[in-house]
């Protein structure tokens, strides 16, 4: 069912680090981001958000706001077209178009209907001549609430007396439909018989871990500009990882055919999974229509981003691992309860696979629970679900190694997943590179060096942890156009988050045998390129690159036809290598640029298109080695050395791959040490600015050293596996294990901040 590719070792373009195509525009500030979009007659939209984490909306009076000078329109949930059709068949038709999204739930998330379920939940929106007028008008909207008790965490949510968030929820608990519950889903994976086989273990360790919700922290806030014109056509510009998802979801909410919606590409200032959701575009669109078809712009402030957009779930994870005296893991059980936020849909499906994916364990039992709490509906964040479970599992693995006096890398090598191992969900691995990654770690300078104990007043420790992410496939489209000067115009539909214009262009250039500078990539709108799935799941260099490779092969075939016309020889006699066509029967040769100048008499322009829908993924593994320095007086913990080792399959653009890994590692370190949604007793988030939500900056971090391991993915023409998500997985466990090494005490809860460190030191 899948093609297994064979690989060259040497490439002309792949593996080099050319100047990125979007580099000049981005460093000079010319690149257009969502906030830069300006249209004639543009007005502003603003959102009124709930001050309460859990309340019933008794009434909304918008009359004062509507009368305010400068205000064009005010909307509430009843103005969303899909809400006006909730009971008709049309909703089902729309729902079928937007797979795997519960539109009824999502529409309540973008504008609350009868209840608000988190502080910051959107309640109404206003359009006005300027942003300040819109903000002032929001203050004139009277909302009468019946305040309800908030559910702040997993423990409170599953308590039998807990307030119920969604009274109409029909939850699937192991195949049974359950009502009156905050557990939105419970499923299980089972391999062998873990419950029984723990009896055969020589040592069993079971521990509980708790994590707090964290945010992706993208610098550019959510934004949208919408123009719903008099011809009933809607044009959108928004910061998103997936312009097609914005089109489809917005069309769904607005009960419009997708052909009536054009989603335009603008640059994205960070997403990390958080911009796979849609918040503002439908609101801006409705405001546009209700404001005399004026274009409307909306931008979240940072507080709204924290309170009103999707973070990564916190939760509770219980890990039980059994080993035998010969150094083998014979059983593993993981109980995962992740905070979905206000509506179902946390990352439990991925977490349930990732938790024990690094290890070849014959008996596995994983129970996963999607838990509703009065916090924003969670969203993806780099390898969603995997950092949380890896933190727990890698901590337990580390403690087992210490208890049994086993070498931490040798133990992992003895139990490492490889081709033919079953993941916790039962699916077999094809060729993977975890063992090679462990071996590279064992040989690394970092692992073989002593910790630099530069200050005798500080405490030092080293930790190591592993992580897994499956990486995605899905749909992508690439169009190629041979220009008359021999250059290639490339259109593709993937939002460029991590330099994918260039990584896709490089795969096309390699196939065509021309310099990547001769490829000119563009990302047009949703009317101009074939469907391309959201940039997420580390899929873009893999899947859109695959489409680029196929489009380049088609272009070569078409060019061969044209050469055969020019040379008046059969096409079969024409060879193509390194950008040059040559005859097998004569000395005739023609480069692509020479052909381009002669092409028009042979039939006009040469173009090609390739669309793929890839099922295959290239499983990725990463390892982090972390050295920390603790100030015992303050509890402040600094990472003083960190090395990330990762199997990337094939690094198309090594500096991009290294950059992705460095960024992921830093985000994981921030998650481990400082970041959290600090929730007050009343259920509200206390730290809604970057002053109080402490993300690491360049001043906090050492250089992140990276070792690229390249075990080609047999399912991709150049061996690509996907890079961007794996590196955030190991740091939580690596930092935790380093703290244990430094202090002798295990921390079971994130963030492992100075307060917790001081408690350990004071008690130790």
């Amino acid at each position, binding site marked *: 069912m899948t093609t297994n590719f064979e690989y060259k070792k040497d490439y002309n373009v792949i593996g080099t680090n050319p100047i990125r195509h979007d580099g000049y525009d981005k460093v000079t500030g010319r690149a257009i981001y969502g906030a830069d979009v300006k249209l004639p007659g543009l007005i502003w939209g603003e959102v009124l958000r709930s001050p309460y984490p859990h309340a019933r909306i008794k009434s909304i009076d918008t009359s004062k706001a509507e009368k305010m000078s400068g205000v064009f329109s005010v909307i509430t949930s009843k103005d969303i077209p899909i809400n006006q059709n909730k009971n008709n068949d049309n909703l089902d038709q729309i729902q079928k178009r937007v797979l795997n999204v519960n539109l009824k739930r999502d529409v309540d998330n973008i504008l609350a209907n009868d209840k608000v379920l988190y502080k910051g939940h959107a309640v109404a929106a206003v359009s006005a001549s300027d942003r300040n007028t819109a903000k002032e008008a929001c203050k004139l909207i009277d909302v009468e609430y019946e305040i309800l008790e908030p559910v702040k965490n997993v423990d409170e949510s599953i308590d039998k007396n807990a307030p119920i968030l969604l009274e109409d929820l029909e939850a699937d608990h192991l195949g049974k439909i359950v009502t009156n519950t905050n557990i939105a889903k419970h499923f299980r994976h089972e391999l062998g018989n873990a419950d029984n086989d723990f009896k055969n273990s020589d040592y069993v360790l079971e521990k509980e871990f708790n994590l707090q919700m964290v945010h992706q922290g993208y610098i550019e806030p959510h934004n949208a500009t919408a123009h719903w014109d008099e011809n009933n056509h809607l044009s959108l510009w928004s910061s998103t990882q997936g312009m097609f998802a914005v089109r489809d979801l917005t069309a769904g909410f607005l009960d419009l055919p997708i052909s009536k919606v054009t989603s335009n590409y603008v640059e994205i200032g960070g997403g990390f999974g*958080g911009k796979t959701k849609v918040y503002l575009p439908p609101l801006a669109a409705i405001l546009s229509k209700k404001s005399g078809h004026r274009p409307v712009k909306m931008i979240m402030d940072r507080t709204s981003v924290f309170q009103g957009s999707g973070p990564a779930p916190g939760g509770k994870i219980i890990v039980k691992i059994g080993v035998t005296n010969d150094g083998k893991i014979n059983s593993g059980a993981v109980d995962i309860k992740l905070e979905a936020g206000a509506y179902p849909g946390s990352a439990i*499906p*991925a977490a349930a696979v990732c938790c024990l994916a690094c290890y070849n364990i014959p008996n596995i039992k994983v129970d996963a629970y999607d838990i509703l709490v009065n916090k924003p509906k969670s969203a993806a964040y780099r390898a969603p679900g995997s950092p949380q479970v890896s933190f727990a599992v890698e901590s337990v693995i580390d403690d087992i190694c210490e208890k049994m006096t086993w070498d931490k890398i040798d133990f992992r090598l003895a139990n490492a997943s490889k081709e033919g191992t079953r993941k916790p969900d039962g699916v077999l691995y094809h060729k993977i590179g975890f063992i090679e990654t462990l071996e590279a770690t064992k040989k690394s300078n970092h692992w073989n060096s002593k910790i630099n104990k530069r200050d005798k007043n500080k405490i030092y420790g080293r930790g190591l942890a592993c992580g897994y992410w499956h*990486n995605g496939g899905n749909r992508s489209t690439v169009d190629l156009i041979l220009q008359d000067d021999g250059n290639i115009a490339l259109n593709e539909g993937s939002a460029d988050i991590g330099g994918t214009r260039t990584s896709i262009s490089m795969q096309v250039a390699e196939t065509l045998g021309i310099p990547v500078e001769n490829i000119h990539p563009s990302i047009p709108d949703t009317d101009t390129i074939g469907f391309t799935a959201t940039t997420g799941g580390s899929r873009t260099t893999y899947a859109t690159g695959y489409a680029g490779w196929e489009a380049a092969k088609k272009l070569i075939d078409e060019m061969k036809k044209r050469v055969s016309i020019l040379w008046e020889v059969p096409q079969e006699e024409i060879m193509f290598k390194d950008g040059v066509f040559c005859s097998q029967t004569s000395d005739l040769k023609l480069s692509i640029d020479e052909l381009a100048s002669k092409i028009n008499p042979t039939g006009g322009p040469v173009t090609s298109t390739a669309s793929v*829908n890839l*099922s295959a*993924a290239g499983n990725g593994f990463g390892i982090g080695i972390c050295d920390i320095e603790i100030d015992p007086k303050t509890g402040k913990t600094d990472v003083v050395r960190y090395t990330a080792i990762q199997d990337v399959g094939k690094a198309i653009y090594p500096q991009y791959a290294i950059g992705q890994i460095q960024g992921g590692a830093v985000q994981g370190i921030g998650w481990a040490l400082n970041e959290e949604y600090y929730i007050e007793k009343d259920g509200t988030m206390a730290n809604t600015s970057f002053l109080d939500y402490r993300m690491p900056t360049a001043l906090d971090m050492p250089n992140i050293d990276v070792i690229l391991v390249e075990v080609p993915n047999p399912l991709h023409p150049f061996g690509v596996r996907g890079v961007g998500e794996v590196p955030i997985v190991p740091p939580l466990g690596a930092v935790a294990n380093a703290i244990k090494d430094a202090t002798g005490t295990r921390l079971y809860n994130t963030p492992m901040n100075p307060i917790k460190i001081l408690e350990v030191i004071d008690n130790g």
Partner: protein
Amino acid sequence: MAKLFLPYHLKKETNNEDFVQVEGKNLREVIDNLDKMYPGTKEHLVEGNRIKPGLSAICGYSATRKGLLQELEEDTEVHFLPSIAGG
């Protein structure tokens, strides 16, 4: 014959076997034949002409993108699992 690994909660429908072997050239045929062997299982896997929303069918190593049209070779492993999204 394909080797079908069913979700945990359906295992009791198939006598708690780790997998069941079912004839069929493609996923649609296999699920239809499964339902003949174990009546009622199909409704847990299929909605109309597609795999049930929220479920993925893993055919071999990875989730199929062809839905019920996915061709199946002899001894292909098919797993029905909760859909996974990435970041």
